[in-house]
């Protein structure tokens, strides 16, 4: 269970990181504000789940070495274009709903996360409707599909495939970080590492 929760928390942390990269530079101002709320929610979810595992969420979030993180490659990918970003948002939210609802009976905070993510799902679906015929978006979904499957345990992947409307394929599994993760981790921890452990910020 702890591995599962750590994976969930790390996913939320890193997808929140990637999503927060759009703050200030999203395609339209109204969307920029909305998208940033989603990123903040995700970081908040990560913190809530870390707090189930430790008293010091910051230490868990920041002070591990890259290979100690349990995030799925999907969330680590550097996707500096909107089509890929929305594709990831949508795929991730569909996968996360399957994962989170399965945890709701045993993990109290899962219900809270699920309620907040209802807004994320609404937002992702709204964009998917708009972009569904755009080749850039369709290609992005195809490209990210194996990564999306890797977010879930094997037993849950059929459900994901049914909801997304694509056939199950070989997943890009957790366990090996994407090439972009090292740089992400480095930037994420650069200020924190500049002071001794336990320094206040």
């Amino acid at each position, binding site marked *: 269970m702890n591995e599962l929760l750590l994976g969930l928390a790390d996913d939320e942390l890193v997808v929140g990181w990637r999503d927060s990269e759009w703050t200030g530079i999203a395609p339209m101002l109204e969307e920029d*504000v*909305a998208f940033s709320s989603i990123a903040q929610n995700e970081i908040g979810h990560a913190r809530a789940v870390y707090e189930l595992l430790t008293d010091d969420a910051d230490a868990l979030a920041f002070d591990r070495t890259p290979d100690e993180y349990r995030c799925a490659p999907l969330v680590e990918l550097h996707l500096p274009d909107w089509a890929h970003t929305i594709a990831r948002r949508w795929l991730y939210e569909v996968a996360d709903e399957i994962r989170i609802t399965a945890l709701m009976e045993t993990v109290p905070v899962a219900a809270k996360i699920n309620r907040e993510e209802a*807004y994320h799902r609404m937002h992702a679906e709204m964009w998917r409707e*708009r972009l569904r015929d755009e080749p850039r978006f369709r290609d992005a979904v195809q490209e990210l599909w194996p990564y999306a499957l890797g977010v879930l345990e094997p037993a849950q992947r059929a459900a994901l495939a049914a909801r997304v409307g694509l056939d199950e394929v070989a997943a890009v599994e957790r366990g090996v970080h994407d090439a972009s993760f090292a740089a992400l981790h480095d930037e994420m921890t650069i200020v924190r590492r500049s002071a001794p452990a336990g320094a206040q910020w």
Partner: protein
Amino acid sequence: MIWEVFRCERRGRPFEHAGSVVAPDAEFAEAWAREQYGRRGESVALWLVPRDAIREVEDWADEFDLKYRRVDGYSIKARLKEARERAAARAG
């Protein structure tokens, strides 16, 4: 499309005009207005209305004296003073 946003700050308060968002349809308008006007819990409810649906009324032709139907059309001080004086005289 421009959508006007009206917000209700607390239950029982009236909806007040808060601003506007540019959005292609009601769904986008909702998604965006929610965050722009509600991310700090500053609103308990929003009304989203296409600007075109709003009919503005801003002139009246009040040509004649309407004071008879307003509070400022009544000045009772002088008469009240006289009525009190007369009542006092009758009693005394």
